């Protein structure tokens, strides 16, 4: 008799589920229709655990762990929703809204923005923290795309898709702390950078930070799901 494949069973929100040995808690939760909010995670990209929205409680651990990077373990007991987690997630969203200038009503991504819909799904109706209102640039130097740093939440999906999928590594992060910025090349204008014009970064951007020139979000929704398809086709080759 052959040894069975590496399968583990665990409990998520009281529900007994099974998982492949190297799956993450986030993957297993989604397979089982358990919603865990995410921003920096995107199927098809590496995980960085930066947005802290997918933090979950694990029994017998006093630390909260990002579900996107938490590998399943036999007998693990995970809680994805609690009053405490809800409060933390709301506050993290508040910190994001207050950090830059997210003016939904005049944003190209209005109606098609992951930050906006997360605010709604997490029950956030206002931001308790004072808005910082930093003065940030809009880079419209590219003939096809626009980068509006006022809407950027530094999820680094653009950085990762450009490096990992397109293989160009045009995007990167510059600066420290609250002054961090995504940049193209060595902070050249996007239009003058080594950009391959593939547009993947625009498709994966969760907010209105990166957009197609002249197109508005509500009639041109983004399609980040192209990534899973692309990866599938690449693996098949």
């Amino acid at each position, binding site marked *: 008799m052959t040894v069975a494949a590496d399968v583990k069973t665990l409990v998520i929100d009281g529900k007994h589920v099974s998982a492949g040995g190297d799956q993450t808690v986030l993957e297993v939760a989604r397979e089982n229709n358990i919603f865990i909010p995410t921003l920096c995670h995107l199927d098809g990209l590496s995980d960085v655990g*930066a947005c802290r929205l997918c933090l979950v409680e694990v029994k017998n651990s006093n630390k909260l762990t990002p579900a996107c990077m938490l590998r399943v373990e036999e007998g693990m007991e995970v809680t994805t929703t609690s009053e405490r987690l809800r409060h933390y997630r709301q506050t993290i969203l508040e910190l994001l809204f207050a950090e830059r200038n997210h003016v939904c009503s005049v944003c190209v991504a209005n109606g098609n923005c992951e930050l906006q819909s997360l605010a709604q799904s997490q029950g956030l109706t206002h931001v308790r923290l004072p808005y910082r209102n930093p003065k940030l640039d809009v880079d419209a130097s590219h003939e096809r795309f626009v980068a509006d740093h006022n809407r950027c939440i530094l999820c680094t999906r653009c950085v990762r898709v450009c490096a990992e999928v397109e293989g160009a590594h045009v995007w990167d992060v510059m600066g420290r702390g609250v002054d961090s910025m995504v940049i193209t090349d060595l902070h050249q204008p996007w239009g003058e950078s080594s950009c391959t014009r593939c547009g993947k970064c625009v498709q994966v951007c969760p907010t209105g930070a990166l957009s197609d020139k002249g197109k508005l979000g509500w009639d041109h929704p983004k399609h980040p799901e192209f990534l899973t398809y692309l990866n599938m086709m690449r693996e098949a080759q």
Partner: protein
Amino acid sequence: MQIAETVNAEHGKFDHEVNVCVALGCLSQHSDQLKDALTKEAAASGKRCRVRQTGCMGLCAAGPLVLVEPSETLYGGVRAEDAKELIDSLGEQPVERLAVHRENYFERQQHIVLENSGYIDPEKIDEYIGRDGYRALVKVLTEMTPAVVIEQISASGLRGRGGGGYPTGLKWSTVAKSTGAQKYVICNADEGDPGAFMDRSVLESDPQRVIEGMAIAAYAVGATKGYIYVRAEYPLAVSRLTVSLREARRRGFLGTNICGTAFAFDIEIRLGAGAFVCGEETALIASIEGLRGQPRPRPPYPAMSGLFGSPTLINNVETFANVPPILRNGADWYSSIGADKSKGTKVFALTGRIANTGLIEVPMGMTLREIVFDIGGGVPNGGKFKAVQTGGPSGGCIPEEHLDLPVTYDALIGVGSMMGSGGMIVMDDTSCMVNVARFFVEFCMTESCGKCIPCRAGTVQMFQLLTKICDGVATHADLDLLVDLCDVIKNTSLCGLGMTAPNPVLSTLRYFKHEYLEHIEQKHCRAGVCACGSRVMAGEEVTA
């Protein structure tokens, strides 16, 4: 061992040794010129004496320091003009005018890590060997298996001196058991806490000790390659390390066939560009790999998957510096020093409102009161002690009522602070605790790498709220919001920097809440530091 004899024979040629501290504290007061003057005078005097450059003697406040052997006379505040008088006095009565009498300061200390500091020329490996240097490595390589080494370290009870206090033996055995063709040993010398200079001093005064510790660790865990990650702001430490690595290679303590055995290990220096977050181990690893110095979530821990994905042992300078004496003298000797669960000694950098500013090494378990008042000499100029801040920006402020607390990892955590790497800043009644908290939060804010939101944006919000309180324009609602933010940032940040950023606020709120409330309710700063205090005073003048 032959070298040791030669070195000691060399010592025998002189009647007097004049040791001049050329570590950064004294060097900044021109101890290099003093050394030149002394050398000149010594040659002119015709006495059988030798003038040497050595490392830190601890009492930095009284620098430049000169230690004369064998009489063990310590001189402080010595200028180049004093050189002749000092050399003339050798073999006669000491120069009373310059002598430093701080019996308490030295007698209460116990030097293990600093045993050679001030006694050897840090750039001469032979002097290190002359004081039992590399005996531990030779012993380890010729008499012990890696498992026995780890057993010894575990039995000694040594815990990480970088801040977390993780049991060193456990860390070593995890790396030893991890599988990988290549393993690494990294020495974390990215000391960045405000007011801390323990690691710098060790590297400047006795760098070979760290190299020996790393070589022993490499043998124990099966690593062949080591890195010392040191901040570029420590140029003297970097240059001493560079010289020391070369010397160690020349003497066969690094490279291949170390001490005639099959063991091979070498060390490279990597310079940090001054980012505090690179003291966090995963960020440090990213930085060595040439990436942006940002942490990543753990697990996987570096012990399993670290530098270039290989098992990696990371310890800080002081931890490695403790290793040679442990293996030389045995685990039982080491574990007999210190307190329960906090074995050995700890080096502290005493700064702030304290008479004897400097570097001290004391057995763990000594009380804060003994450190601050007996060794440190208390608050100068008749000031009143208010608090001592330990653990750097991640630590907390400990008030008078807890001064009799023994300094151990767990006791400090119990009062809302932490051991940290060993910075100890003493504050008196001229310090406003809200302002102190604001200072440390500002530090974390500017040092945040920007990867995770709670730390990146949360520290800014905390800083703004603290500024409001300092300015006397905050409300009780602002204070509630601050406390709430502390909770969120502490529990949701990605790495240690963010998780501990609220600590200065939480600990000052715990012991000095009345100061916060005074700022809010009475617009009054009792220390007179914050602008709100002066504003109220101005207002009172108007109404009077």
